[in-house]
């Protein structure tokens, strides 16, 4: 096969010429991806009648249950944003943005029928909303564009999660990435979104670092964190178990486990407890008996399980099988504490969770308007109540959409501005603040206990105390959160 004997005949020349001509006639543009013409100067600006969001959740691995529930919540949120279904929290959502202090804007929000005058109903409604207004969303998508989504599997691995998020940004043109059920993944994807220039709305991530040393301008977290768990839990634990206690920690060996353990240790030691030991367990561990066995003779009378998801189910079951809960040490009943609880985990651990204390971001049995609306539409769609992971993901999607609608643009910098310092209510956690300094939400924290007499298989937790927001607040430069910088918002152009 040599190339020299290949003569180009007259026929070939004409054919080639026609093909070339056809090729040149087709519209051709060549441009740098980040500076596409006429798209508003930011990455992945939605071009057609729709906008694409990226839902990046664990579908395999130890947090797959949480991931599945998150995905359900996202699909529900998309439905509600597109004006399908009953609207869920869109009907109960109330917001107050620092940018709304302009009297014209405030009046336009209150004046629902837009006739320039306030009727008695409009006035009463405005008063009842305590200076807040309803959402700017109209149930016609976001800024009139229909919401579409793509999904991906994070595998609870930073690398896989980033690859999946990158394909959403580069291939599918996603303008916002959300999800994650592990803090390691959340931190990794948040960093990616900052570099790429899209917004990241964190899903279930409880590590202090997500809005501490790894905080980013393009990233936002609605979920609470380890410090808040400690601050809410410690007073209840002191009340229940007394001041003179010796705690043994088993801790999942990654950023979330470390910061939660440090937070709980700090908060309980302030109450007079002593920390006997802290043992790190790899995230992939399934058999915890070799970690639980040494607890028995350690002289500790409290076991703190800094585990989540499948890890917690296994370690708690192991601890109960060792008979720890029937033991008496130092003249006191041996107790187990699970600082971060979720209904999915409690269900997985079954009988073993009865009477065990922990904290949670949200629970479906709450009776405020927002929670009721969400539980109702989620239940109607899927036939069971949502988990806290589903709740935080649903709320994050709505908050993002509302911020875009108010900003009037999908430009990440506009969204950041609309979310920073935002106060909102009616979304299940009472009055909440998105703090501008670290993009962390501040709201009440629930202290819960495994229910002794559950009425259904979903009714496994009871709320012991709603810890008010003031008690779990901290300064942005608190030592557990120090070391990072938000940086500048990045629109990717």
């Amino acid at each position, binding site marked *: 096969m040599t190339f020299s004997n290949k003569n180009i005949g007259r026929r070939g020349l004409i054919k080639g010429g026609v093909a070339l001509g056809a090729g040149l006639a087709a519209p051709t543009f060549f441009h740098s991806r980040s500076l596409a013409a006429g798209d508003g100067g930011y990455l992945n600006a939605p071009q057609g009648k729709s906008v694409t969001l990226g839902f990046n959740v664990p579908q395999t691995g130890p947090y797959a249950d949480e991931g599945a529930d998150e995905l359900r919540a996202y699909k529900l949120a998309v439905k509600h944003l597109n004006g399908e279904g009953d609207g869920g929290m869109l009907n109960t959502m109330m917001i107050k943005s620092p940018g709304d202090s302009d009297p014209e804007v405030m009046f336009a929000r209150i004046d629902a029928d837009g006739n320039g005058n306030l009727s008695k109903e409009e006035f009463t409604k405005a008063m009842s909303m305590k200076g807040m207004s309803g959402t700017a969303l109209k149930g016609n998508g976001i800024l009139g564009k229909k919401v579409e989504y793509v999904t991906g599997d994070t595998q609870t691995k930073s690398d896989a999660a*980033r690859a999946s998020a990158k394909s959403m940004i580069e291939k599918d043109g996603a303008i916002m990435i959300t999800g994650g059920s592990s803090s390691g993944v959340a931190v990794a994807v948040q960093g*990616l979104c900052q570099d790429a220039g899209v917004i990241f709305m964190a899903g279930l991530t409880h590590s202090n670092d997500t809005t501490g040393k790894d905080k980013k301008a393009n990233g936002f977290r609605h979920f609470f964190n380890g410090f808040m768990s400690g601050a809410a839990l410690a007073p209840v634990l002191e009340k229940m178990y007394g001041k003179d206690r010796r705690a043994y920690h088993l801790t999942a*060996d990654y950023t979330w486990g470390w910061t939660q353990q440090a937070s709980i240790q700090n908060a309980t030691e302030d109450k007079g407890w002593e920390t006997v030991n802290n043992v790190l367990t790899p995230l992939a561990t399934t058999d915890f008996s070799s970690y639980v066995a040494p607890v028995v003779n350690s002289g500790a009378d409290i076991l703190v399980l800094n585990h989540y998801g499948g890890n917690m189910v296994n370690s708690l079951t192991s601890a109960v099988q060792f008979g720890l809960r029937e033991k008496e040490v130092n003249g006191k009943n041996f107790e187990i504490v699970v600082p971060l609880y979720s209904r999915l985990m409690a269900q997985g651990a079954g009988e073993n969770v009865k009477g065990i204390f922990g904290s949670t971001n949200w629970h479906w049995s709450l009776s405020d308007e927002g929670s009721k609306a969400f539980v109702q539409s989620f239940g109607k769609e899927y036939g069971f109540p949502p988990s806290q992971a589903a709740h935080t993901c649903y709320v994050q999607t709505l908050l993002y959409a509302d911020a875009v609608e108010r900003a009037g643009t999908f430009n990440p910098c506009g969204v950041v501005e609309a979310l920073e310092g935002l106060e909102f209510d009616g979304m299940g956690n009472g009055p909440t603040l998105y703090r501008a300094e670290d993009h962390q939400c501040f709201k009440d924290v629930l202290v819960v206990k495994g229910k002794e007499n559950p009425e259904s298989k979903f009714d496994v937790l009871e709320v012991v105390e709603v810890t008010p927001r003031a008690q779990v607040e901290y300064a942005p430069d608190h030592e557990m959160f120090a070391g990072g910088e938000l940086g500048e918002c990045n629109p990717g152009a």
Partner: protein
Amino acid sequence: MFGLNRNDTLLLIFVAIITFAAPILMNPFPTESSLAQFNAGYPDLMQRFVIFGIFAIGFNILFGLTGYLSFGHAAFLGAGSYACVWMFKLFGYNVLPGIILSVIVAGILSVAIGYISLRRSGIYFSILTLAFAQMSFALAYSVLGQDMFGLQGGLTNGETGLQVYTSDPQIFHSEAAPNLPHLFGLPMRETWVWEYGAWSFQFNAGFYLCAIIMLVVFYMSIRIFRSPFGMMLRAIKTNQNRLNYTGVNTRPYALAAFVISGMYAGLAGGLLSAMDPLAGAERMQWTASGEVVLMTILGGAGTLIGPVLGAGLIKYFENIFSKINDAILEGWFAFLPETIGDAVVWVLHFFVGKGWHLTLGLMFMIVVIFLPGGLVGGLVQGAKRLFGGRRRKNAPPPSASPTSQAAE
């Protein structure tokens, strides 16, 4: 050309053309069509194709030539990644020093691991390498991820992965240089988009850097395959005992092959970090080591181009099939009557999305059972059957190296 025979030159040119045209070839479907789901022509995935291609080419030098099956090559990939990110943290975002250091670090590590592991062969060698890799993983994941030497997050930053912070020294970083990995000012993230009719093709700077490097190391691998050194490695595979009895000391040869393939892995790791400056410990996990074994066997161990094909195929499944969800399936089969459509979706549901491993597993079984030579072996057989008559006249005598045929 370049000291290669005609067939190898043609192969190299063919691979070069395919690689450089990849942004177009990988995007056969118009952007708005429903088949766009299967397009793979976006920067991240194309980078992965060539980077894991490099990884598999290197692995093939060890496994394909000497027959030593290492289950620990991910350790070198990970070490290379960490080395590259550390260069970013210390000296700034130019990728060249990082890539060079990643090769050096992986080389040193592979000398250490290879020196010990190669004292055994067969299954014991595999287990030793697996043990070393898992040890490296545990070190990176946990021990070296704790705060140490006054470094927050230690050497590896544990499960979160090592990343660059604004507070890092980056002593050669200047205001003019981009604040992300770049090659003398050209950001790796830079992508030019060519809108052609309904199609849109993405030409990414990082991808082309990786592609050029892959072609260079692919050329080196061809030279190794054809060299007396490569012949010696094949002899080790065929019968190491006989070599020893004839007085040849085989261990230096095996160690050299091990170190070369370790450096290839380190290069791949460094490139991964250069494209995306975060190094995670899971790159060192045994699943990552197993993946490269799968890639090599799937494509055809001992063939030149096979590992690259295998790498591409596995990465394609991981990134494309895993993103097909039930909603997309329902969209495809909406034209069917509802009950039949639901049934089809229910069946396919197990093979896409989170079930992509199942599809890959089935395909792997089919290849191993029906195409023992891997995909390339199958292609060569098929070609022979098709052009059998004509080929026989030109074919070299059967005594010539069998692998050189398989490589075509």
